[in-house]
């Protein structure tokens, strides 16, 4: 296991080095070299070794040429705070050429921090249950390793051609990153590449420039629909909410009871009567919806969970929060409930929270407990499930028992498996067709 771990780590480093140092043509030459070695191993049988010798000579010259690149650069990058999965992010990069000579024909590439895995993490990656392929197959282990690397890097970069950089001057260019996974992307620097005359091998100059970027979940377009629900009493739970809708309304005065908040004390009456008196106000009634996100799965990462987060982000973003509250409920390392709406929190904050959602490998009852706690205050509920089993069925039935409008979205890999599910307001969203399935949701 330890050998495999070191082998894979080395393999990743070699791969990164090859991709940075060799141009596409250089990589093609490398592949051709391997082919010529196979065909021309016996110099008596073919003359392939002559092609091999010529290609090796060009590569040697190219590598030798790359040893000399006496240029100095300063780099300043203006990175936005957020990006979204799947949407290319463009930002400004200012490169200053500190040489006396014009620098032409250069490229630059962003350096994403090395996704280092510990041996324990590696073991988890290769032993995690998956229904795809054989667990023992080396190819599949390598595939999972690559997926884990992509998951940790969270973004892809590519070499971008630079315009000619004038001596001792600053040129502003447009950088580009394609986020692939939600979470924090850590950038550690920018590498300037200079290909050799054959355009096979790059000389490099790396300028350290740390930076980070939060990648928000992907969002789908949602149909226009309203989640109905009557207003419910929200006793003192939204004290920070603005006064839109039912504001604090005075009813009467009563004696102080231990536990009453200090801001409710009516100081004037206390002064008159000599004992503490508090104001009694009319209870607040307004609409409060819950967005329940199911994160329970055995694997640490899965495409289904990513899609579930994306769907949750779509609802969180599209929800009109001026007059109602939205509780985002999910279980990560512990049970979480974030409330937004009526001036409390913002959509962006909700997406930031969703960017950090991780899978929970505990019992589903944790989520159930969190829902039970809030259910009396809820006017409606959107439930995003990543699987369908007895426990989830129990949750849905429980919510249904409270007669509150309920929308259940089940994300699945296999659509046929759930064809017989005939529950009201339950929509199956198959992987790859989620956008189309979302557009079919009708108002409840």
């Amino acid at each position, binding site marked *: 296991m330890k050998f495999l771990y070191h082998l894979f780590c080395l393999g990743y480093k070699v791969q990164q080095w090859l991709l940075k140092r060799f141009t596409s*043509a250089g990589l*093609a030459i490398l592949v*051709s070299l391997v*082919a*010529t070695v196979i*065909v*021309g191993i*016996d*110099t*008596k*049988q*073919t*003359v*392939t*070794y*002559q*092609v*091999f*010798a*010529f*290609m*090796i*000579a*060009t590569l*040697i*010259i190219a590598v030798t*040429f790359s040893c000399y690149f006496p240029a100095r650069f300063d780099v300043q990058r203006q990175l936005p705070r957020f990006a979204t999965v799947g949407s290319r992010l463009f930002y400004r990069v200012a490169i200053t050429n500190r040489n006396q000579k014009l620098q*032409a*024909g*250069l490229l630059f590439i962003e350096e994403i921090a090395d996704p280092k895995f510990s041996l324990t993490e590696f073991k988890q990656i290769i032993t995690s249950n998956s229904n795809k392929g054989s667990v023992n197959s080396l190819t599949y282990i390598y595939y999972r390793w690559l997926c884990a690397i992509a998951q940790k890097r969270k973004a892809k970069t590519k070499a971008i051609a630079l315009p000619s950089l004038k001596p001792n001057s600053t040129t502003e260019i447009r950088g580009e990153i394609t986020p692939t996974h939600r979470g924090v992307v850590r950038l550690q620097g920018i590498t300037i590449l*200079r*290909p*050799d*005359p*054959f*355009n096979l091998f790059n000389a490099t100059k790396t300028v350290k420039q740390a930076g980070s970027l939060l990648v928000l979940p992907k969002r789908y377009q949602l149909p226009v629909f309203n989640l109905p629900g009557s207003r419910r009493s929200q006793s003192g739970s939204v004290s920070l909410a603005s006064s839109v809708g039912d504001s604090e309304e005075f009813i009467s005065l009563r004696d102080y009871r231990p536990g009453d908040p200090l801001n409710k004390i009516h100081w004037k009456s206390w002064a008159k009567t000599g004992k503490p008196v508090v104001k009694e106000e009319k209870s607040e009634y307004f609409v409060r919806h819950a967005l329940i996100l199911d994160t329970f799965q055995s694997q640490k990462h899965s495409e289904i969970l990513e899609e579930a987060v994306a769907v949750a982000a779509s609802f969180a973003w599209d929800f009109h929060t001026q007059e109602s509250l939205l509780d985002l409920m999910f279980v990560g390392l512990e049970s979480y409930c974030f409330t937004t709406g009526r001036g409390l929190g913002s959509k962006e904050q909700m997406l930031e929270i969703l960017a950090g959602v991780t899978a929970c490998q505990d019992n589903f009852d944790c989520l159930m407990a969190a829902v039970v706690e809030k259910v009396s205050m809820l006017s409606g509920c959107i439930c995003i499930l990543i699987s369908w089993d007895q426990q989830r069925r129990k949750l849905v039935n429980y919510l249904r028992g409270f007669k509150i409008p309920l929308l259940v979205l089940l994300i699945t890999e296999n659509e046929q498996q759930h064809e017989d599910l005939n529950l009201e307001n339950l929509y199956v969203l198959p992987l*790859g067709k989620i956008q189309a399935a979302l557009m079919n949701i009708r108002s409840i």
Partner: protein
Amino acid sequence: MKLPPFLLGATLLFWGWQTGFWIIAIPLAIIYESSRYINWRWNLATADFRSTSHICTVLLVGVLIYLLVSDRSLQLIFSFFQWLPVICSPLVIAQAYSTSDRVDLHALLVFKEQANQKQLFPLDLTYPYFALCILAASAANVRDLFFYAGAVFLIGHVLITIRSKRFSVLVFISLLILATALGAAGHIGLHRGQIALQQNTARFFYRFYRPQTDPNQITTAIGDIGSVKQSNKIVLRLKPASGQIAPTLIRQATYNKYSSGFWGATKAEFVPIKAGNNNTWILENGYPEKREVTISENLDEGRGLLKLPQGSFRVNKLPVEKVEQNQYGTVQAIAEPSFLSYQIQYNPQLSFASPPTAEDLQIPKLEQSAIARIINELELASKSPQEILSTVNRFFSTEFSYSLKLARQRRDRTPLSAFLLRHRSGHCEYFATATTLLLRGVGIPTRYTVGYSVHELSRLERQYVVRARHAHAWTQVYINGKWQAFDTTPASWIAIEDNAASNWQHFQDLTSLIGFQFSQLLAIVKNIEIRRLWWLIFPLGFILVRFSRQRQKRRLTALRIKQNAVEYNIGADSEIYLIERELNKLGLAREQAETWQNWLKRLQNASDNSAIFDGLYAIVKLHYRYRFDPHGIGVREREQLRSACRAWLEQYQSTLNSDR
């Protein structure tokens, strides 16, 4: 970036030139390059490209069948490489005439079709096809300057298109010239390095392992540079029947197709030989006039070629699993690695190989001009077969010399042409190959045979020994309806080979003889039937009884020593030792080898209170009985000893206390 215009067409023509596939290369080049002038395009999707790749598969299978039918030697692999541009051409042409300039990698047959293919891997096939054409051209193995020049020109053309614009064209061209020079030096070095490595490795490993000759193909040293050196190792021993002479040549394998230093056996098919009684294998039906010879050798691998004289028709005493023979007379035995000593019956006047075929008259294109020139020079065309043979023999023996040192050839000639026309010096493979092809040039069917020359009669062993350096090659000529051996290598070769003998040869021969005798003995023992070994029962039984007695004796001795050790420990727990310890504390130690009796006497003499020691005499006496009496003491006496010791100690302690 696309390939420069007309480059792929030019590469196809280059491939056609190198491989000789002009008829295919020209139309392919025209079809591909015409796409620049023809405006209509197919709208091909990934599925259509997949269908096109199915055509490629059909072509692949077709080419493989054709190659398997026409040539079953290992050269097939290299012939297959030459056909690759033809096999892959439908895909490239489909791309050229499609609306897309790239093909999804999933369309290629190696990738499985998946229902929900999300990612596309578009690939411009022209670059891989370009590389494939160069690779296929190199597999033709045309060893002239034009291949390297052509390949450099074509690859250089691609490099100039993709070059970095940061540098001037002048810098690029200078570096390209440098790369060309380095590449030329490198490939010459590689080739020579491989030959040197092969020679040294072969020499090194020949001491431990004797490589098997492949009945389908053999690599000659034709075209190599440097000196050919063979080992002195004795590979087989040959003993003719008494009063008979030994055959001068023993054949190992015969081949009929020559190509750039390789001889192959076309469509060689081995047919199993029926086994007779007592490990006899009948290759052909019996002949009254026969000679006999016994050959002894080691069959190192599980499969090996038998060394047989011309006209062998029966092999006796060959304990192997299977014997097979191909149409060229090559005989192969399959058995466990072992020492073999087999008897061959043969008639040198006979030949059992299959009649000649068209392949036995084929001359490779590259050698045709040199062969034709020699035929003209010797005016062979107008002569009878017998005259031709004598002329050719005279020609090689007078005009040529034998040499183990191989000269460098000019790049514009093949090594064989250079041998025939220029330096006229070489080893037996040159002579045999040249003779084979020369006679084919005048319509005489010939084959190339490898084996050994038998000429060294060992005084030590009183039989012929054949060494690795006696390996030889000659020609089989089909004259008067039968195949005959025709050897044109100058007779001086034996003397030259013998000069290469090591100074240690005699010592090596002696060790080899010991090994041979031992192997022979083992083989004899192996072949003895069990029922003939009954007489061994008595001496073996005697040895067994004696051995078991000795073993029993040894076991008894060991047991006795163990018992003694237990006996020695009896009485060690006597309480008298407590008394001794107490007295030791007072500095009254018993000396080594001093008996208890003597010690007590000494103590009494030295002490003021001698009476106290009187009581000890009885205790000592009882202790002696407990310790040394074979019958030991009873339980009561043992208790008495214990209580007496304690009582004496208490008395002694109280006496000491009162003294203080």
